[in-house]
């Protein structure tokens, strides 16, 4: 597909239409159009039906695996692209908000006519005459009705205007193009398609720099040229970027969601959209919570989720990390040894033999079956805490009919005390609980029998603290998993308690500024 231009797509269509075989024409025309759509959206699945230019049966069915937007869109191919015909087509098929794709062969039709004028004239009655092709009112009607009905009318050049060059890296452009294919409406010929695409793209780029004019023009364009569902989603995304970059929500025209945080569907749109390998972008979307992540349907697009989580590991707060054994999972490469996902309504981290679920409240993990296991040995805890860079202030062991609690009377770890193992005695192989202190002073409460790490009752932890430090203490990671975790999340620095409060995200800062009615309060920051 690479290197195919709109000209060649049009040429392919014209060549296909000139073939004497009906089957060959149908196959080659559809393949040319399929290639064109796939250049815009490599993830779209396209089914070619047996129909061809049928009044009400589609030639192609575009479908998307994720169900965060419309999952299907029909495509009707048309040789007759004069406004009068298209107007009738819109009336016939608009019910399903399809794409009407002009094969753009009006020039060819002329040539055929000149070469071989039909011998029999029909002497038709009540013709809607050729002047319709020049009748601005028909064109205006076509624009109005296609827009109102959510029908996208386009042609090879119109779709080609949405194609991102192979060497381009603009994920936003890809996302916008994909959304237009999925939810665009109205007339998208080459000129209008380029203009719309450019306006929306420029708006997103401007939104990152809080450039108001271009951002708000994009908002207007989105409302005009995308259907309600897709348009609203893209608008929320634009709004999110605007806010994430420091723009004021109240300045955004008809802001779709007047809150600082990303809406669920805007976040879904980002995560399930094209790969955005830009840490700064994900960092701007900082006000993300575990409950919100748990509500998302991210389909099979965890890579963006991984980026979001990794970049915001210090901003996302949580209190619980429960690990359960899982069916062996084969990773294709080391980079995928650990993989983030949304599962059972919670953010989850998959390992090779386990899944760790993260939550703010214990009840959110009620549906996660906890397999009670035996405790671990003191030696194992020492090894795990070495990796987690944690000291142990106290621990509980069970054995010989006794429950033995050991606590340090200083800041030193009990694991460093030479009398610890002897004190625990017969229960040294069955530690059931421990309290781990991290270098920053935060505490992780560890329950080995339920493979659960949590904060103290009134405390909170960050995702980094729970996953980078708590998880390896309550679950025996394989060496390669430990390496992968270390690569994914560096350990917390030795900052002390006071710095934990400085975890506010860009959104938090903006929110507090926006909601503050007294400007003088801002000066206290």
């Amino acid at each position, binding site marked *: 597909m690479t290197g195919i231009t709109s000209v060649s797509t049009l040429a392919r269509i014209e060549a296909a*239409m000139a*073939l*004497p075989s*009906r089957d060959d*024409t149908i196959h080659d025309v559809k393949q040319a159009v399929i290639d064109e759509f796939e250049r815009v959206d490599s993830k779209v699945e396209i*089914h070619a*039906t*047996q129909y*061809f*230019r*049928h*009044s*009400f*049966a*589609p030639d192609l*069915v575009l479908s998307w695996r994720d169900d965060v937007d419309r999952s299907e869109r029909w495509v009707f191919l048309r*040789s*007759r*692209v*004069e*406004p*009068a*015909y*298209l107007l009738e087509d819109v009336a016939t098929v608009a*019910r*399903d908000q399809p794409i009407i794709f*002009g094969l*753009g*062969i*009006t020039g*060819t*039709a*002329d040539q055929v*006519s*000149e070469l*071989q*004028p*039909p*011998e*029999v004239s*029909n*002497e*038709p*009655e009540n*013709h*809607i*005459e*050729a002047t*319709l*092709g*020049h009748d601005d009112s028909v*064109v205006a009607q076509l624009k109005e009705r296609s827009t109102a009905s959510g029908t996208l009318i*386009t*042609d090879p*050049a*119109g779709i080609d205007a949405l194609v991102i060059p192979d060497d381009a890296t603009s994920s936003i452009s890809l996302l916008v193009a994909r959304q237009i294919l999925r939810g665009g409406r109205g*007339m*998208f*010929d*080459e000129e209008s398609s380029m203009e719309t695409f450019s306006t929306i793209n420029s708006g997103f780029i401007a939104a990152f720099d809080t450039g108001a004019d271009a951002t708000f023009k994009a908002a207007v364009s989105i409302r005009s040229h995308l259907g309600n569902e897709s348009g609203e989603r893209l608008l929320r995304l634009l709004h999110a970027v605007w806010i994430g970059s420091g723009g004021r929500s109240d300045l955004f025209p008809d802001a779709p969601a007047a809150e600082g945080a990303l809406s669920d569907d805007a976040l879904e749109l980002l995560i399930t959209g094209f790969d955005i390998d830009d840490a700064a972008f994900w960092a701007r979307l900082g006000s993300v919570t575990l409950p919100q992540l748990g509500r998302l349907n991210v389909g099979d697009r965890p890579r963006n989720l991984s980026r979001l989580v990794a970049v915001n590991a210090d901003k996302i707060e949580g209190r619980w990390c429960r690990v359960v054994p899982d069916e062996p999972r084969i990773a294709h490469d080391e980079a995928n040894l650990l993989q983030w996902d949304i599962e059972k309504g919670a953010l989850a981290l998959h390992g090779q033999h386990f899944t760790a679920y993260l939550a703010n409240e214990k009840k959110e993990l009620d549906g996660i079956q906890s397999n009670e296991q035996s405790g671990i040995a003191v030696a194992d805890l020492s090894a795990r805490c070495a990796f987690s860079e944690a000291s142990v202030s106290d621990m509980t062991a069970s054995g010989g009919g006794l429950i033995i609690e050991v606590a340090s009377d200083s800041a030193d770890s009990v694991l460093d005390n030479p009398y610890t193992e002897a004190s625990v005695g017969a229960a040294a192989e069955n530690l059931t609980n421990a309290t781990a202190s991290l270098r920053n002073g935060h505490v992780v409460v560890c329950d080995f029998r339920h493979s659960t790490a949590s904060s103290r009752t009134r405390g909170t932890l960050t995702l980094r603290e729970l996953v980078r430090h708590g998880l390896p203490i309550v679950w025996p990671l394989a060496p390669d998993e430990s390496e992968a975790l270390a690569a994914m999340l560096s350990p917390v620095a030795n900052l002390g308690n006071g710095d934990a409060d400085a975890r506010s995200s860009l959104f938090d800062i903006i929110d507090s500024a926006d909601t503050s009615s007294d400007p003088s309060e801002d000066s206290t920051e």
Partner: protein
Amino acid sequence: MVGAAVGGEGTHHLGIDGANRAKRWLEGTTRVLHTWMNPEDAVKLRFDWATTGTFTFDLGGTFWGEELHNKNFYAECKKYKAAGDQGTEYKKYLAKCYLALEQRPEMCDHFMWITWAPFSVTSWPDLMTAEYVASSIESDVALRIRTIGESVALPDKDHCADVAKRLWLIVLSDKQEVLRLSDDERGLVVSNRMKLGTQ
């Protein structure tokens, strides 16, 4: 370019002409997979006269389902208010069918004359007989020469019979075009076929 106007020879085909209305009516039966129309599909509708030159049908297509499944057809469409010159044109059409069946029999399962006005009513019972096919070709010397190459030769009787059994004569009316499955119902038919994987 979407919305571009057709100029020159193509302009008389703009608007909702007879062939286009016949196409939509045929598709509305849900029994047609695809159709081909003049002028854009002339290459697929073109045949040779026995002497020189070519002719085209207004419409061609392929049926779907049951006894018509994947059967191909050609059609002439007359959006007339009255009989007009259909009597003469119909004879010429039969000569075209005769030649088309000779040249591409695999594409000529059915020949359809679709009109909005009856014609030749006194001969109506005979219009689709082998004898009428033969007599139509013989009736005009010029047509006879263009069809069988010479002015005195007779058309092949068996071939005329073969043509006759493929003939359809359909008289539509404007109101009849409305009497069909609704858009919603037709959409359901298509959706169901696609779900069943038959299309």
